C-alpha cells in the first residue's frame, strides 16, 4: 500500500478530483498548504525593486492506494493537474505499512 501525496495548484483541484472519480478513485484527503519549488517562487517587478513571492497557495492531496494502482493514480492526477506552466506541482509516493478503517476495524496490510 502506498500513500500518494500530490501537491497541485488550487485551481486544478476540481479537474483532478473529476479525473480521479472518472478513473474510479474516490477516497482522498486534502489540505491547504503553501509551497515553493526549485524556481524560488515568482519575482514581481515594481518601481521600488523586486518582490519575491516564494510561498504560493497549493493543495496537498493524499490518496491511499494499493501498490498496483499507484501508476494509474499518478497518471490520472497528472492529467488533471497539468497546465505546463511553472508550479504544476509534485507527486510523492510513500510506503505505508498498514491502513485501518475506523468504522469497520478492517485492517489492510496488503
Amino acid at each position, binding site marked *: 500500500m502506498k500513500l500518494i501525496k500530490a501537491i497541485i495548484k488550487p*485551481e486544478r483541484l*476540481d*479537474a483532478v478530483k473529476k479525473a480521479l472519480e472518472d478513473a474510479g478513485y474516490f477516497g482522498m484527503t486534502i489540505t491547504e498548504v503553501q509551497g515553493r519549488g526549485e524556481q524560488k517562487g*515568482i519575482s*514581481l517587478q515594481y518601481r521600488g525593486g523586486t*518582490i519575491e*513571492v516564494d510561498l*504560493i*497557495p497549493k493543495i496537498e492531496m493524499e490518496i491511499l492506494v494499493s501498490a498496483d494502482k499507484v501508476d494509474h493514480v499518478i497518471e490520472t492526477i497528472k492529467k488533471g493537474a497539468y497546465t505546463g506552466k511553472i508550479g504544476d506541482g509534485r507527486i510523492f509516493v510513500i510506503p505505508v505499512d498498514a491502513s485501518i478503517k475506523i468504522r469497520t476495524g478492517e485492517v489492510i496490510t496488503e
Partner: protein
Amino acid sequence: MTLDSGATAWILASTCLVMLMTPGVGLFYGGLVRRKNVIAMVALAFLCYALVSVQWVFCGYSLAFGSDIGGFIGGPDFIGLSGVGMEATSLPIPDILFAAFQLVFAALTLAILTSGVAERIRLSAFVVFGLLWTTLVYDPLAHWAWGGGWAASLGALDFAGGTVVHISSGFGALAIALVIGKRMGFGENSIEPHNIPMTLLGAALLWFGWFGFNAGSAIAADGLASNALMVTNTAAAAGALTWLLASSIRGKPSSVGMVSGAIAGLVGITPAAGFVDVPSSLVIGAVAGLICYGALLWRLKKGFDESLDAWAIHGVGGLWGAIATGIFASVGQTGLLAGNAYQFGINTIDALIAVGYAFVVTYILAMIIDKTIGLRVTEDEEYVGLDISQHGERARS
C-alpha cells in the same frame, strides 16, 4: 431659503450613511473574490473614495452643479468649492452640506464600477482611469439630472440616482470589463467567493446606508423623506424574496442571491423613491429581483466576465428603475399608470441615453488607458494575486 436645523441634521446623518456605503461595496465585493485579491478589492473602494473626494472639491462639484453650459455640463463657478458657503440659499440646508452629500454619491458610483475590473486591475492605472471617469462620465450625468442639464429640463425624473449612479456604474463596469478582458482561468477553473459572511456584512452596510441615499435625497426631514425610506425598505425586501424564490426553483437558494436581490430592489427603487407609494414599491422591488437575476444568468451564459455583477444588478436594475419611475409615479408626479405617457417616454429615453453615454465613454476611456499605461496586471501578478502584487500584503498570515 432659511436653514432648517432638522433638515440639516438629517442630511448630515445621510451623508455619513452614504459615505459608509463605499467601504460597504468594498466588503461586498471583497467577499466575492478569491482570498488572494480581497485586500486589493476593499482597498479599491477606499481609493475610489479618496480620489473622488479630492476631485469633487477641486472640480467635480462645479462640473455637476455649476451654472449650466448648453445643458451638458456645469461651469467653473465652484472650482475648489469657492462660493459654496455655510449658508442655506436655495435649499433648507447649507450649500456646503449639499456639496458634501453629493460627494458621497460620486465616490460610491466609482466604487460600484470596480466590479468590472476585479482581480486584474493595475492600481496605478486605476488611479488615472478613476479620476477621468468620474470627471467625464459621472459629473455630466449628475449635471443632466440634478444640475440643471437637459434631462431635468425635459422633466426626466431621477430621485436619488438610478440613472446617475446605477446606470452609469453598471454599464461602465460592463464596458471596462470588455476592454480589460476575462480573468485568467475564467470559465475553466472555479472562481468561488472566498468569504461570504464578509459579503453579507457589506450588504448590511449597503442596505443601512441606502436609507440615507434615498431618504436623504429629499433634502429635508419630512414626509417625503419618510415615504422614501419606507418604499426603499419595501422594495429591498421584495427584491430579496423574489430572487430567493427564483433561485430556489433553479437550485439551492444562496445567501448571496438573497442579498443581491435586496440590492436589486434598492437599485430599482432609487430613482422612484420620492415619487411612488408602498404598493408600487413592492412591485418595483419584486420585479427588480427577477430581472436582475435573469440578467445575471444571461451574463453567465454569455461568458462575460463582468465579475461581480455591477452590470446585472446596478446597470439593469437602474434601467428598470428609471422605466418603473415613469410607470408608477404617483406621489407629487404622475406616471404612465396615472395617464402620463410623456413621463414614461422621457424617463425611458433619458435612461437609454445614459446607458449609451456611460458605455461608450467608458469603453473609449478604458481603451485609451489600456493602450497607453496598461489597465491590467501581468500574468504572474494576477496569478499570485493583487494583494501581494499591488499592495505587498496578505489577507492571512
